[in-house]
């Protein structure tokens, strides 16, 4: 006689829904994060086969130790001038974020997104690649654009959708574009830019160029099919691209468990595609720089793509539209075990005798002043609703030339 499931005395099936370790009111719990000591991860030659460096997808590449020294094989041995430049960009980005957040709260724009706590991820990468390389960002790599020297006033014009907005009032705030600065137009849809970065890199290879692409995606959006397409195409065509997963632990209110982050690291996803994969302490400026430089050298040597998980923490809200204390312990950011990227780089520079607290204070003051000056200039053009491009531009750039429908619809609006 065949046994029915009941007779076999099996448990009934149960559906598992992931739950984060701590919700509001719970004690902060980062006990599952056990960072290896700085300097412990080996640094393979760029010519090493991806299959021989799989362990790097499960550890953390770290350079800065507890004493703020740069240690181990990944130490990029950077000129202090480059480190100070990095500190400058990160400090400026934080000042910019703080001001634009306040401007949104004052009703001067509709929306804003900060990158607080993640400044090193974009800043160090921007300094590690060449000026001609193309960045395919998400909405949280503003430090990359600032590092490229893009004017803050133009960023603000975009945020205010004013008459000087480079996007002509068409895009939600922070969705900057600047081809000449190697910055792809930000979509606002999640993940779509990841396989596009691969396509751009394929084009560069097709043309025998030297430029590479740098793509970004959030850990939450790795759940999208576009992530799989990007890795597949990058692997198949050995595209000269750096594919960064910024694992900042939170996708609005959903923790990384909803992208299967509890089951494996995000870097580990590269292994199945035969793509070189690194997991990097994203709050360690030197580690981010070294890993990006390594991946860029591989790409430029026709050795193909690298997937880098930038392990970091979103210290602020997702955007101006959510309050993180409604879904995670309010004090969680202060307990992030990998610290703050600005503080860590500052301490390193102080420890190497290249910086001081007084100098940092001055730098912070200068950053606030630079942001204030840019804001004054942008707000003289106008904030949201006070100033905007001509309404007739609404019908432009749908196609290279408007067809009869768009001409008639523009006439109907009377512009």
């Amino acid at each position: 006689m065949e046994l029915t499931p009941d007779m076999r005395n099996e448990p009934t099936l149960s559906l598992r829904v992931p739950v984060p370790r701590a919700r509001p009111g719970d004690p902060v719990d980062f006990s599952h994060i056990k960072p290896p000591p700085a300097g412990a991860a080996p640094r393979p030659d760029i010519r090493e086969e991806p299959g021989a460096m799989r362990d790097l997808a499960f550890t953390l590449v770290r350079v800065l130790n507890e004493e703020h020294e740069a240690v181990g094989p990944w130490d990029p041995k950077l000129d202090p001038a480059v480190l100070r430049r990095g500190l400058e960009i990160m400090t400026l980005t934080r000042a910019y974020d703080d001001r634009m957040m306040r401007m949104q709260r004052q009703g001067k724009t509709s929306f804003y997104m900060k990158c607080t706590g993640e400044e090193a991820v974009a800043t160090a990468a921007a300094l590690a690649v060449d000026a001609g390389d193309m960045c395919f960002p998400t909405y949280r790599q503003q430090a990359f654009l600032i590092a490229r020297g893009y004017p803050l006033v133009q960023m603000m014009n975009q945020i205010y959708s004013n008459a000087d907005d480079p996007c002509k009032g068409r895009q939600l705030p922070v969705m900057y574009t600047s081809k000449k600065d190697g910055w792809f137009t930000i979509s606002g849809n999640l993940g779509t830019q990841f396989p596009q970065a691969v396509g751009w890199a394929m084009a560069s290879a097709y043309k025998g160029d030297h430029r590479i692409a740098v793509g970004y995606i959030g850990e939450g959006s790795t759940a999208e099919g576009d992530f799989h397409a990007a890795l597949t195409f990058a692997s198949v065509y050995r595209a000269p691209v750096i594919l960064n997963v910024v694992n900042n632990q939170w996708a609005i209110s959903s923790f990384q468990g909803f992208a299967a982050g509890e089951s494996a690291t995000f870097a580990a996803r590269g292994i199945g595609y035969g793509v070189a994969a690194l997991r990097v302490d994203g709050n360690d400026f030197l580690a981010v720089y070294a890993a990006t430089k390594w991946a860029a050298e591989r790409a430029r040597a026709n050795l193909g793509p690298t997937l880098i998980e930038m392990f970091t923490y979103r210290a602020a809200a997702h955007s101006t539209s959510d309050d993180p204390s409604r879904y995670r312990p309010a004090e969680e950011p202060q307990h992030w075990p990998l610290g703050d990227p600005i503080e860590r780089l500052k301490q390193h520079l102080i420890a190497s005798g290249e910086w001081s607290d007084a100098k940092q204070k001055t730098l912070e003051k200068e950053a606030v002043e630079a942001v204030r000056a840019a804001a004054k200039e942008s707000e003289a053009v106008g904030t949201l609703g006070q100033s905007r491009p001509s309404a007739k531009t609404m019908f432009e750039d749908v196609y290279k030339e408007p067809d009869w429908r768009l001409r008639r619809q523009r006439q109907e609006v009377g512009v």
Partner: protein
Amino acid sequence: MPAMNMIQALNSAMDVMLTKDPDVLVFGEDVGYFGGVFRVTEGLQKKHGLTRCFDAPIAEGGIVAAAIGMGAYGLRPVIEIQFADYIYPGYDQLVSEAARLRYRSAGDFTAPITLRTPYGGGIFGGQTHSQSPEAIFTHVAGLKTVIPSNPYDAKGLLISAIEDDDPVIFFEPKRLYNGPFDGWHEKPVEPWSKYDLSDVPDGHYSVPLGKAAIARAGDELTVLAYGTMVHVAIAAAAHAEVDAEVIDLRSLVPLDIETITESVNRTGRCVVVHEATRTSGFGAELVALVQEHCFYRLEAPIERVTGWDTPYPHAFEWEYFPGPKRVAAAMRRAMGRN
């Protein structure tokens, strides 16, 4: 001039453009070594090299996304989606990205992509090899939608599409690849070589996007058609004994509203035909436009003959397909000759 079928004409268009412009490249599933499941890219890899015509992973979203990235770099990719029925995984990249790149970046980035894909029924392809999804693309601001009905136009329109600086969805009526099809499905297939429109020049020429053709001149009634249905409409006119003017729209976006308006205002009667399902089909747009532009000259209600609002059924191909009998009946109703 050589006689070409539609496959050869499309192949020639890509051959001409690959030769002329080093920034043109062709890729898609099975298009490289094998030359595509319908042989449209046959020989292109051998002639132009591995990196200019190559195979792609089975990932329509990835194919479109890669083309967008290439377009942003400055290339002019021509991609093939093996059947229009498989296009949906690429829909987000087309609608949210390719269509809006120029607009959202105020012209900073553009996507000069041509997406070729076989569409339509009449080949016993069932519900996954017969669909006509043109209306879900004409509805999207920023995309152009083109559908040829013969070899000469196929080559000239495809060259125009590749040279266009905006993304173009290029639907190829697969039932017309090897010969015209007028919907009388019991008749033997005739080769294109018997028809004037198979006279296709070897070299470069273009047929402009947004310009319709008069496929059959007539005075009693206007039929608005595209793709396979152009030939069905001509056969239906003979069957109904109606002196119909059959307009081959050739591109749905941009649409040649002037040719449509001139004809319907002259004939006072209009029949709109397409293979796609009826509800919210492109025919609904055409009927609305004719009503807006020609209402006071209309002498009868506008007729619409389309596929039914069902998935495309395998065993009921000829009940589903809007053949000449159904189109002829609509013509006679429009003429008041029931």
